[in-house]
């Protein structure tokens, strides 16, 4: 599997929270050759199932597939679109950005704002507010209504670019980079002997309701859940204490959302495989699918692996491709290490 190509395709695909169809469809196609079967649960999560040699136990890999973005909230007479946000979006990143309005027909647009020389002085001294911004597709009021309604989702315009040293940038690396890792785990597991059945679950709506994470565990009732998500990379504004070196390190979380023993097992495998990691402490809610999975059904032992990215929740999330590979290897080795009486160790 070509990791970079897969990341390019999946991060460029559209899938705002509750509008994931398009990216799900692309991901399912990629799962097919890697899994024994693919299917959807009632909530709409995509599941790729890969049978283990013994099949007594189940492990799920949960990666949320949805992305943040915007949603049309109004249409002005002259065709400019008002919007609201889906998920955590800093309004200050929007002015001058390019977007795709995902209506009947996909329309390219620009987030417009009133230029400073047409604003009064007070306005220039503070960031634009949402009410001062709009989406401009170049269509007039009549034409735009043919393609766009209130409620039409709007995504950042994708453009995958390569930076130096295996780094690349695009929208939606949170969390498509983990989705790619999950696919690559399935690919690696074709070569590794694994006893447990594996369910790669691509979960919906993590950025808003965490619907996918809450339902994925209940439908599968696994013995163990591995959640993968994005964490902060070191960058301007994010100190070495707040984030991680995106070239070198993935993180394994410790905290109340995560199962202590399972996490220790994971760290043991990482040490054995000489995979560099740092412990990321999540003293409260981890803000990931892991926190939903842990309290699903009778409770699921859950671990969390995170990939550091820069500029999280922007249109230019940045990652080092090598980290995706490393994370996949860790998860695949961890799954291969699980034996039949494993669950006893969690009691």
């Amino acid at each position, binding site marked *: 599997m070509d990791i970079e190509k897969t990341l390019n395709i999946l991060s460029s695909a559209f899938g705002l929270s509750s509008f994931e169809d398009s990216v799900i469809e692309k991901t399912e196609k990629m799962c097919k050759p890697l899994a024994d079967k693919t299917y959807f649960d009632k909530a709409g999560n995509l599941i790729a199932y890969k049978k283990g040699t013994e099949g007594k136990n189940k492990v799920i890999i949960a990666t949320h597939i949805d992305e943040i973005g915007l949603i049309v909230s109004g249409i002005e007479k002259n065709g400019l679109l008002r919007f609201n946000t889906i998920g955590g979006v800093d309004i200050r990143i929007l002015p001058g950005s390019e977007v795709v309005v995902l209506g009947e027909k996909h329309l390219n647009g620009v987030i417009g704002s009133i230029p400073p020389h047409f604003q009064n002085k007070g306005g220039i001294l503070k960031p634009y507010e949402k009410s001062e911004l709009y989406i401009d597709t170049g269509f007039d009021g009549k034409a735009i209504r043919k393609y766009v309604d209130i409620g039409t989702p709007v995504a950042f315009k994708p453009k995958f670019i390569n930076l130096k040293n295996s780094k690349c940038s695009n929208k939606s690396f949170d969390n498509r980079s983990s989705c790619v890792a999950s696919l690559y785990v399935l690919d690696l597991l074709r070569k590794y002997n694994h006893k447990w059945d594996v369910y790669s679950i691509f979960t919906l709506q993590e950025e808003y309701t965490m619907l996918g994470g809450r339902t994925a565990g209940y439908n599968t009732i696994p013995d163990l859940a591995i959640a993968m998500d994005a964490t902060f990379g070191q960058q*301007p504004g994010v100190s070495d204490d707040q984030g991680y070196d995106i070239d070198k390190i993935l993180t394994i979380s410790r905290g109340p959302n995560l199962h202590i023993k399972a996490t220790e097992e994971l760290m043991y495998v990482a040490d054995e495989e000489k995979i560099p990691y740092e412990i990321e402490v999540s003293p409260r809610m981890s803000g990931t699918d892991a926190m939903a999975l842990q309290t699903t059904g009778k409770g699921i032992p859950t671990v969390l692996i995170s990939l550091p990215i*820069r*500029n999280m929740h922007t249109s230019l999330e940045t990652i080092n491709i090598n980290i995706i590979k490393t994370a996949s290897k860790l998860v695949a080795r961890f799954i291969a290490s699980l034996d039949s009486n494993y669950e006893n160790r969690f009691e």
Partner: protein
Amino acid sequence: MIIANLSNAMGVSGNEFEIRSLLYKLAKKYADSIKIDAMGNIVAYKKGAKSKRKLMIAAHMDEVGFVITGIDDKGFLKIARVGGIDPRICVDKRVIVGRDKIPGVITSKPIHLLNKSEREKIVPFSSLLVDIGAKDKNEVKKYLKLGDSIVFDTIFEKLNQKIMKGKAFDDRLGCYIVLELLKKNYEDDLYAVFTVQEEVGLRGANISAYSIMPDYAVILEATGAQDFPNKKDINISPELGKGTCITIKDGNSFASPELLDMSIKLADKYNIPYQFKKTGVGGTDAGVIQISGKGVKTIVFATPARYIHSPVSISSMDDVKSTFGLTDVLLNNIK
């Protein structure tokens, strides 16, 4: 498509290398002679049938952008703006760095780590750093030098049949119109000028007008459209798709009454859509051409563009045609 290539080309004020060589190549085909002066302006000359007077048409080739002012230890580029750019439209934008066109991104701190007071403040230029993915300062030095320029990474596209989007419409639309005019033949001598450094103080036009000493000059500009929805207190003009913008007065010049009168009459006669620029803000090359040498009669025709001086502008091809059309009839009819 020429208009797309002009928009995509790199040419921050004072460092107009790519756009200049593109324009030179394109203008050479239609000019009797062409030269690049000491500052880098291109002057293309086309002899007229009667050759009585000198008509100058000018558009500026430079665009707003950034320049590298420093490199931090971790390999992030510190930048300063070149020309008037609002820091609020710079966060989270893709850029192209230096002559080798290295891709980069302007970093932004994740929303999760921002406290309330940070979110209520504008991100200043000092915090807008460019990430090219380098490991450290030494690696950056292998590719780039302080003073190298940076532009927004925006690709020209048609949004629909009439409307287009791209960077640097101010003033590559003007450059496009000057090129189109250079293809035509006039009775008077024509000097088609592509000026440099308009965005940093109208410096190029100054010397080009002085060396030509034209009788009349028409300046082809792009001007900020203001057809935004919500502010009742601002004057809605210019509007996209409503024609070329005849500038009676801008930040540093008045139109020559003689040219203004002619232009309005000609536009009416030939049914060329036009509107007036009502704001009076923003200086243009007209301001310095007008006062060069013994003085020059000038007028500015501007194509409306939404969001000028930002990563991406939007304009109507219909307005480009109106600006071209009005300039063309004026050049044919100056009495």
